[in-house]
């Protein structure tokens, strides 16, 4: 350990750009044993492990780094999977640069440990070696319904099954995984990886009901009566419009609509009103990870040109730095400091901006530059401006306390105003990271166990 003075930080290698933009396979290669071990060996093993502290799941990162460094894959696998319901997924999709790696002691001076890549390595190599997640074979005779199969749902199910509690999971889509399946493109997260986790849960005894929308296909009252507890993890799926003249035009789309449709077609499903960008000029408005996903999907869909329009400058972009880099590599053009004014049939009218004072969170405000309007040509305009919660009917029926954005109100234990019902993830906090949803799921599972065992 402590070899950071001798070994530099290395990211896992990527597939060549010309190759990767032709398909939806993952861009990053997985570390081989030597590389993972070498990179892990850089870790200090701090007295205050900031990575672990920052991680919403509080993964014991230094512990598994040390075990990888000393080639004890089994121990690393077990420790990694103890705190996380799906480390190989978060290793791929977490914005490590704003979480663990961003807080890594070495980040500012020597380059952070490549925590995400090693995390993925551990589980993938572990699976290859035959290790599997373990669940409690002893059942305690309690049953919980989980509504929604996204990161929060998978997490709560995982930890409930570990505690010996039976789980039935309800998903309105035809496949489980929620955002993991439909919201994140395959080049970031291969869909078989998500399916593998779901399959293990089913193997552990979970009943999965897909294409089953609560309030439509099954009543919430029925659920409430037949289960010992409920968990609602329905996410925040409602896309936002910019609120401009022309939002309603037919070449304006929402990010999630676009991504889901593309993904469904990948699954070989029939998709109505497919958004075909092939040969077209695409602009994506927004600077987060979803914007990057849209941009890069557009590239893979064969767009003629792909542009990202963002109000602030590059330094203020909320998305992962590495995704910006990947996008650029793949031919995306970034236009910073522009703010949309209106949508026209052949494009979008913009005004230039400049950066002002930073607010409390450190983010700088935006000033409009006068007389700087211009028009950007575009055939397809995609809004990637974040998500808000939907308010499905069954929530009204339950009469749960909601916040003013329709978020479900919960206490520190993820318990709602109905003691039997727990909730977490984007449905509670609004659009946020998958790993935070999973942390909520873990927290909720612990609370449910305490609630049921008393």
């Amino acid at each position, binding site marked *: 350990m*402590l070899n*950071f*003075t001798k070994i530099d930080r290395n990211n896992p290698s990527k597939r060549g750009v010309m190759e990767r933009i032709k398909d939806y396979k993952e861009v990053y290669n997985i570390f081989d044993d030597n590389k993972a071990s070498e990179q892990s060996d850089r870790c*200090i*093993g*701090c*007295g*205050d*492990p*900031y990575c*672990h*502290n*920052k991680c919403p799941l*509080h993964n*014991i990162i230094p*512990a598994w780094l*040390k075990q990888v460094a000393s080639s*004890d894959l*089994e*121990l690393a696998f*077990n*420790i990694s*999977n*103890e705190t996380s319901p799906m480390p190989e997924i978060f290793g791929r999709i977490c914005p490590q640069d704003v979480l663990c790696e961003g807080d890594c*002691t*070495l980040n500012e*001076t*020597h380059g952070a440990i490549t925590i995400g890549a090693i995390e993925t390595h551990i589980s993938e190599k572990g699976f290859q070696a035959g290790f599997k*997640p*373990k*669940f*409690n074979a002893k059942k305690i005779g309690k049953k919980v319904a989980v509504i929604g199969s996204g990161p929060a749902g998978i997490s709560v199910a995982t930890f409930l099954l*570990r505690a010996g509690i039976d789980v039935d999971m309800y998903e309105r889509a035809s496949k489980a995984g929620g955002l993991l399946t439909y919201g994140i493109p395959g080049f970031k997260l291969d869909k078989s990886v998500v399916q593998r986790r779901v399959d293990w849960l089913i193997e552990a005894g979970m009943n999965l009901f897909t294409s089953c929308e609560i309030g439509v296909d099954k009543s919430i009252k029925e659920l409430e009566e037949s289960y010992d507890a409920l968990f609602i993890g329905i996410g925040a799926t409602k896309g936002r419009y910019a609120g401009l003249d022309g939002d309603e035009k037919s070449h304006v789309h929402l990010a999630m609509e676009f991504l889901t449709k593309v993904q469904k077609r990948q699954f070989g499903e029939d998709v109505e009103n497919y958004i075909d960008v092939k040969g077209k000029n695409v602009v994506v408005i927004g600077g987060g990870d979803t914007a990057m996903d849209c941009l890069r999907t557009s590239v893979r869909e064969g767009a003629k040109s792909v542009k990202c329009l963002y109000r602030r400058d590059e330094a203020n972009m909320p998305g992962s730095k590495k995704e910006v880099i990947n996008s650029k590599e793949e031919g995306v053009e970034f236009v910073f400091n522009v703010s949309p004014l209106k949508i026209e049939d052949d494009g979008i009218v913009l005004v230039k901006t400049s950066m002002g004072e*930073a607010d409390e969170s*450190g983010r700088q405000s935006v000033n409009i530059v006068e007389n700087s309007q211009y028009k950007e040509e575009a055939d397809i305009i995609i809004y990637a401006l974040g998500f808000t919660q939907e308010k499905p009917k069954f929530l009204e029926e339950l009469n749960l306390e909601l916040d003013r954005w329709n978020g479900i109100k919960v206490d520190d234990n993820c318990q709602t105003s109905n003691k039997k019902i727990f909730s977490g993830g984007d449905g509670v906090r609004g659009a946020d990271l998958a790993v935070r949803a999973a942390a909520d799921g873990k927290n909720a599972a612990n609370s449910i166990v305490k609630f049921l065992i008393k």
Partner: protein
Amino acid sequence: MGCNLDKLTSFKDNCGFGLLAHLKNKPTHKNLEDAIVALERMMHRGAVAADGKSGDGSGLLLSMPDKFMRKVALQSGVDLPKLYAVAFVFSKDESQLDTFRQYCESNDLKVVLNREVPVDTDALGEQALSILPKMTQIFVIPNTLVSSKRFEAMLYLARKEAEHKLKDDEDFYIPTFSSKVIAYKGLVMPTTIRQFYIDLNDDDFKISFALFHQRFSTNTLPKWRLAQPFRGVAHNGEINSIEANRFNVEVKTESLKSEIFSDEELQRIFPILQDGASDSASLDNMFEFLMVNGMDFFKAARSLVPAPWQNAPYMDHELRAFYEYSAIRFEAWDGPAAVSLTDGRHIGCVLDRNGLRPSKYFITKDDRIFITSEYGTVPFDEEFIIDRGRLQSGQMIGLDLKNGTLLKNDDINDYLKSTQNYEKWLNNNMKYLQEYVEDTFLDLSEYKFDDITSRQKYANISYETLDQMIIPMANEAKEPTGSMGDDTPLAAFSSKNRNFTDFFRQKFAQVTNPPIDPYREKIVMSLNTGLGHTYNILEENEHNSKRVKAISPIFMKEKVDVLVDFGDKNSSNYDPDYKNRFFCTTFTTDIKKALEDLYEGIKLAVQEDNISIIILDDRAITKDKKIIPAAMAIGYINQHLLEDKLRGRVSLLSVTSEVYDPHTAAVLLAFGANAIYPYMMYASIVSFFERKNISDYALQNKLKNSAKAINAGLLKIMSKMGIATVASYRNSSLFDVLGLGDDIVQSCFKFASSDLAGLTFEDIEKRIEKLHFDAYFNDKTMFPLNMGGFYKYLNGGEYHDYAPAVTKAIHNKNATKKEDISDFKGLKSLIENRGQKFIRDFFEFNSDKGSISKDQVESKEEIFKRFAAAAMSCGSISIEAHEAIAVAMNTIGAQSNSGEGGEDPARFNTLKNSKIKQIASGRFGVTPGYLVNCEELQIKLAQGAKPGEGGQLPGAKVTEMIAKLRHTTQGVTLISPPPHHDIYSIEDLAQLIFDLKQINPSAKVTVKLVSTIGVGTIAAGVAKAYADKIIISGADGGTGAAPLTSIKHTGNAWELGLSEAHNSLKANHLRGMVHLQTDGGLKTGLDVVKAAMLGAESFAFGTSVLTILGCKMLRICHTNKCSVGVATQDTDLRTRFNGTVDRLISYFEFLADDVRDILAQLGYTRLEDIIGRSDLLKVIDDDFARKFDFQNILRRIDGIDTCQVASNVPYDKNTESKKLLKKVINTIENPVKPIIIDYEISNLNRSFGTLTSGEIAKRYGDDGLPEDMITYNLTGVAGQSFGTFLSRGITLSLDGVANDYVGKGMSGGKIIIKPQLQGSSYAGAGNTCLYGATGGKLYVRASVGERFAVRNSGCIAVVEGTGDSACEYMTGGIVVILGETGINFGAGMTGGLAFIYDKDRHFIDNINQELVEAIRIDTDETELERLYLKKLLQDYEKTTQSHQAEIILENFRSQIRNFWMVKPKNMSVLPLNPDEGD
């Protein structure tokens, strides 16, 4: 106990001592006069009050002045018969004397005379006079035939009975009651003892021997009865193992049978040891008991204070057999000790195994021997002295007055080994466990459990415990190292599962006794463990050598099997003496009842079935059964067996899951376990490595390593208290018990110190229930163990005060403005809302005033004056960090501390100069120039992270710059010894303080102590040793690298130590003489104000300062890899340092401002006004807080609360040195013409040359003056510290001898010592010469004492013989020894060279070969070395006219073959410059 009030006035004592005897037993009055002169001339070793009359007591134990006694009896009309005895009695009234006389009569003694002892009370100080007892001599004669035969026995019996009867009468005391000796002692100064005791002036008062003693007590409440000598012993030093010795004497008492006394009489005598006596008095009690029961004088002496034999292969095998036999019956009374003893016929002096006290002797032409702490105590001409020498480590010298023979060490040894056939006895009866064990860890079956993870969880073995402690021990065979102190709560305050042993804090030696170096001085250490019965110690026979022996108390399956087999009737090894039985230590509910039941079962087994090996086994834990904590079970059983007088019949073996680090093992041993089988540690290792496919052989080695690591850790823990053998450590209770209630402490740990009384049996049981639930019912799935969080922060684990949130607040990354560099508000809120984690969190303010406006409060500049940065050396931290601290502190008018490791002279007189310069045990960079460039000199006795331990700076970290500052060689590992080798006791500390006040008279001298129960006693002693300031460091602070268990389990929080020190100083009326400072985890104004209220006048900050500078609590300081450039010497990493002076200043401004806010709120305008005001604090209103007893901390006794003097001026004004300085001051100022001064010196001239050196250093730094600019030609005997911190340009040429610490810290100049009696057989200088010297030359044409040239890093020396441990820790310089050396030569020597003349060819055995090698220099390759040596010897011969050098040089070609050159093994380039030899 709950209330530690008595601790405030308790004491430890050290002293000057000696004896004088006429070899032919001729009584003269001159003998008495000389004894008193000797005593007078060691006054500086005792305590003297300002009036010159009051001290801590002195006295004489004299052979019976027969002529005088007969004369005074006759004057009263009593014609004494041949056989008579005199009792000297201190009493309050006649009724006490009546009681005594009644016991005389009931024991067949006839009282013939009561004589009131004539005294002159004008000789007394005020305090002594106010408590002056009535002094009576009672003359008795035998009343019957029986009593004439058993006269001495009856005297003893009568005295013991009277003592028992009047044991509650403090005023009643019998100094002596004997026909052979009589004591004259009391609260008088040596200078006035003769004025006080009029008898002593009578010419007929003739004696043939005298033991004399002057006491230096740490307290100021001396009593008449406490003066020494006692009845047979005068002791200088401290018995570190005293608690264990007292316990063990009680155990031995169980099986006593005497030839002198009947059983009934013995019962009247018991207890052997008087209650409430000092360590020396207890030793005296024991020795006297052995003497009166007819034990051989020399055997008794050597049984109580044995030489080190266990690891001394050079020792004669028969002598070793004697010691091994005697070790069955006696454990060493261990500690620094020079003990003079007498039984009236014999007289002797014995030195402890480590040679930690000075004991010097000389024999005069008129057949008298003098043994004293110093040479020159009786001024004789050199011609009058025919022999001069000193006792070496573990040696004894004696006299048989009846035959008029002098017995030197070898004579005594020859006698000891030849009296019995010990070897045969041992061969026949001693069973060595290892001989029955083929190999260990072959059979692993006992280390496999189906439910191992539950068992591990129950034992608190987490991933972290495995990863940080157990596996490293298995891999490295030693305990791992950590850094940055401990920031977690006490076990009692924690809400997490904690080990029961976490309630116990290790004790350590500071000031009154030294710790030992368990690595470099392991030759004196031993873990030898014996099992079996305790036999009658008064009987020496073959049967009593029956014992099972093991080399260590840490067992494994194989050894346990053998032991069990010894007690198995069906075994061929069966021996009824070793019958054993397993007792299960699990329980279901009611732990207290379970303990009682467990004990009842054991008691029955011992009484009915003669079971002698009790095996306490916790392996029966299940889902339904929990374990009684091992320490609780051991403590309870041990204590109750003792109460039932059964302890000596059994040995306790603990089969326990709780032991997996050295600390847990030490707790069990200290509370009575004889041996430990830590099966769960082994099981954890097996289960960890089993998966890894390592070979059986490799796994076996891992297991062996783990046991080795525990052994090494035990040695370390024992050595911290200065205890060398586990036999003397067992039953010592050397822990502070914090947070356990009185019921638990009383029934399990009553001999230990305790504080914060709190948790009851029920509370502990509740904690155990939670632990048990977590272990057996709270399953995890993927990784079953808990992750930890005890050593390092983990979410959900133990609370850490420097958790990521705190360091993040300090490093506020979002700051855009300078004042926001740290988020102080955030920091404050985190700290203030942490809950009840540390002692101070349980207190809130309770002001007696209304709040005032902040404008009325004193300015922040006033408050800055009270701030200091804690000591951190430039070496432990980077130069960038070190200088930033200095500049910041100097800018705001606070103080920075150099730490020990030198400081670049370029920084002196600039803003980068550290106002505090530290002196620690390594003396690195401690030169005259360093010492004069500061306003405060801080002696670091202990450091928070690892009190009682030394340190090591690995060669890789010794960069060119570090080497330059420390006067050592780049790349050479530097070792700091655990003790200061010039401070083994309080009078030694007084000497060092005196030295420092000579070199830099304007500096304040500070002594840094670490908090522990009893630190108040030490603080009082330090104040009496003339320190100006005392620092009480919290054990939780400390930034240095240290073994993990030391960081976590040694010493106490500052709140405990500070309040105790403050109150103890007040109780002793010393508070006004010294300033008090504290440190340890202070962060906010709240901490500062609370510390002030508990008595601190100033405050030091370590960890917080480093954190401000960028430290992120990585806890890797010891790796040199600090990624933020704070604690590293790596040039690349240092560029990452981003700390700034502004940030530090901003932090201290915040702190001062915060303090001002609080003061305003409290209604006080100045910090000064709340210092010591513990009444302004109260315990918070909270259920959990109510569990604990905080009275010891919040206690406020009457008296002044702050220092009232500018300087604590020593009694010795050193006027001679001042006079001499005046004579040379012109030469110093204008060094053109050399000056020579003739002067007659005596042992009263201490630190000769130091004052002058300081004047030189002030002007010229370490460059000094041109060589020989000032020459002192001296005759006589030089006092302590001759030439200490000598500057270049001074030459001290002495015709005579010198005492201890010659040339200590000298940086230049020359010291030449030419005694009349020259050569290796005679002494020329005392102990610890050249300690930390960095340059100059020392020639002594005789031999010198122990630890010559210890930590020398530059001086060139030639001497003609040395004591033990010469050249220890040496890092540079050249030492030539033209004669015998003692053992342990070159231990820890990493630099420099030594040439040894070894004509008799036994030097090789004396080398500690760990780091050095000896090579011959008569080869082609070593031409340079030969040349160098020759030139040096020629210069030596010319300067000293040494006969030895003359002989060698005359025949250099052949004599060169008798030389060895000793050099560090890894040194390739020799630091020789032949020109320096000239």
